[in-house]
């Protein structure tokens, strides 16, 4: 279970302060599929990064299964991410110099020294990249890139999948395919927090949350 308690996230830069999250309280149950929507700049990405233990909130607490992840040491928090969280981004964010297979194997080096090559190949096969294992991201289509990214997010068998507008750069058909994969992960017991603008994607979700100016406007 993920609990955000009065979380505020203020970015300080030379151009002044930006309150990206403003007193956000939110609970995501295990095995829940939550869609987060909101206009650009409303704080959606910040919300995901905060849940993942990537940016310490200016105020408030983030509890994952009752443990405050920002009370962990940096090393422990990195390990928490490696073992529990999968990330999918809008612009795929594959490592450009690694092949599709190597990208999927990348997170596994943090948890199992003997790289789970077999599992990685299976994942890629499942997502239809079986014939493209040795290709670099630049040699893949956008759909293939995002499917590789999903495979990478799942390669450590996390229970939590955070997806930040994963369909933003894809044609509707490919986008649908990606959301189907997330739904499949959810059906198998995984927890999904999906940031998206696609109305149809909300149909997969058990709950939709709207954010505006860093505040949650309860939708469901």
């Amino acid at each position, binding site marked *: 279970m993920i609990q955000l308690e009065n979380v505020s996230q203020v*970015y300080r830069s030379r151009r002044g302060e930006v309150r990206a999250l403003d007193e956000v309280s939110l609970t995501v149950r295990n095995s829940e599929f939550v869609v987060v929507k909101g206009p650009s700049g409303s704080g959606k*990405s*910040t919300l995901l*990064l905060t849940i*993942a233990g*990537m*940016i310490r909130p200016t105020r408030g607490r983030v509890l994952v299964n009752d443990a405050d992840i920002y009370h962990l040491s*940096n*090393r422990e928090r*990195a*390990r*928490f*991410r*490696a*073992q529990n*969280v999968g*990330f999918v*981004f*809008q*612009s795929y*964010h594959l*490592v*450009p*110099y*690694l092949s599709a297979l*190597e990208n999927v*194997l*990348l*997170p*596994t*080096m*943090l948890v199992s020294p003997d*790289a789970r090559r077999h599992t990685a190949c299976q994942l890629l096969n499942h997502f239809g990249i079986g014939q493209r294992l040795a290709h670099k991201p630049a040699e893949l289509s956008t759909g293939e890139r995002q499917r590789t990214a999903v495979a*990478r997010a799942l390669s*450590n068998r996390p229970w939590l999948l955070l997806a*930040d*507008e994963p369909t*933003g750069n894809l044609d509707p058909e490919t986008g649908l395919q990606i959301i189907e994969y997330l739904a499949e992960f959810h059906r198998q017991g995984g927890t999904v927090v999906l940031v998206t603008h696609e109305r149809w994607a909300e149909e997969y979700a058990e709950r939709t949350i709207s954010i505006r100016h860093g505040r949650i406007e309860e939708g469901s």
Partner: protein
Amino acid sequence: MSIMRLLLREVQHRKLSFLLGLLAVAMAVALFVALLTMGRASNIETTRLMRNLGFNVLILPKETDLADYWAADSAKGDMPEEYLRRLAETPGIAADHYVATLEKKVRWRGRAILLTGVLAERTAIDARKKAPMGYKIPRGACYVGYAIAHSLGIKRKDTIDLLGKKLTVQRVVLEAGSKEDIRIYAHLHDVQEVLGMRGRINTIQALQCLCGGTMAELQEEISGVLPGTQIVELRSIATARSETRQMVEKHVGFIVAAVLAVCAAWVGLLSLLNVRERRTEIGILRALGFGSSHIAALFLGRAAFIGLLGAAVGFAVGTALALHVGPEIFKLTFSKVRPAYDLLIPLVFVTPLVATLASFLPAMIAVTQDPAVTLTEE
């Protein structure tokens, strides 16, 4: 997948950046290796030259007037031959060789000649080194100067009667165009007999070795052992050359330090550019669960790898340069230029260390970079 593999893949991918770093490191190492290799060769050569060209310290009895010594052909005053042995057996004097001479201008067969008895003595410093050429004359033998030999028709293997002593001509010395041409060299003891000066000598010449110490120190050491003597420094081509070498060595140190600094800055800058170029990647790795130590290892390891490869390439290039260009530029004997293999091991350790240190700041920037900055940029 491992950090090492990740690192190698990145290097493969961004070849140019890697090669630029490698180039800088290899250049610095090559310069250092080439200069050092040639410096050593030049050292060997200088030592050899000094041995051939003559002695750089002259020990004379106190009563010898230096003005007379240089003006006349031989010196007034003499000292015991035993001084030679005493010098040679005293440890800690920075000289390789001593040659005792007894020299007198005499008339022989109606002309003036310089009769010179020589006896060389090695010191304990390096007993393996050979005595200077031309000073090992056995008893009963002599070397005859060119002018005398020519005008009197003396040839090799002739026997001459030198003021009552029969000596075999072992060599007619090549024309020197100097006093050497009217000189007859013989063993010290033969000359002492001929001149009736048993156990006496009038100079000891010493060759200062390149084992450190200044001329002043050497002079002090010698006068401590030999009372009643004066010590004169002879400035030969060899000493001048040795001074040049010392001066060059000083500048080489400066050049190498400057090049090292520039290359370190260059490597650091390239690392910084690498870090900047990989900002998003760092963010992704963070999101995937890579810790600070992984990120640091990735960038520091990359620098160390550049250093390691640069050391190897630089050593090869520097050695090749010294071997092929050195002999021409520095007029060195090719065989004296030897690869400085003893440098290889230290270089292989030190160069990656320097490259890593140069990249330390960029790596820290990578480690402390806020992933939110790159990952919210969409």
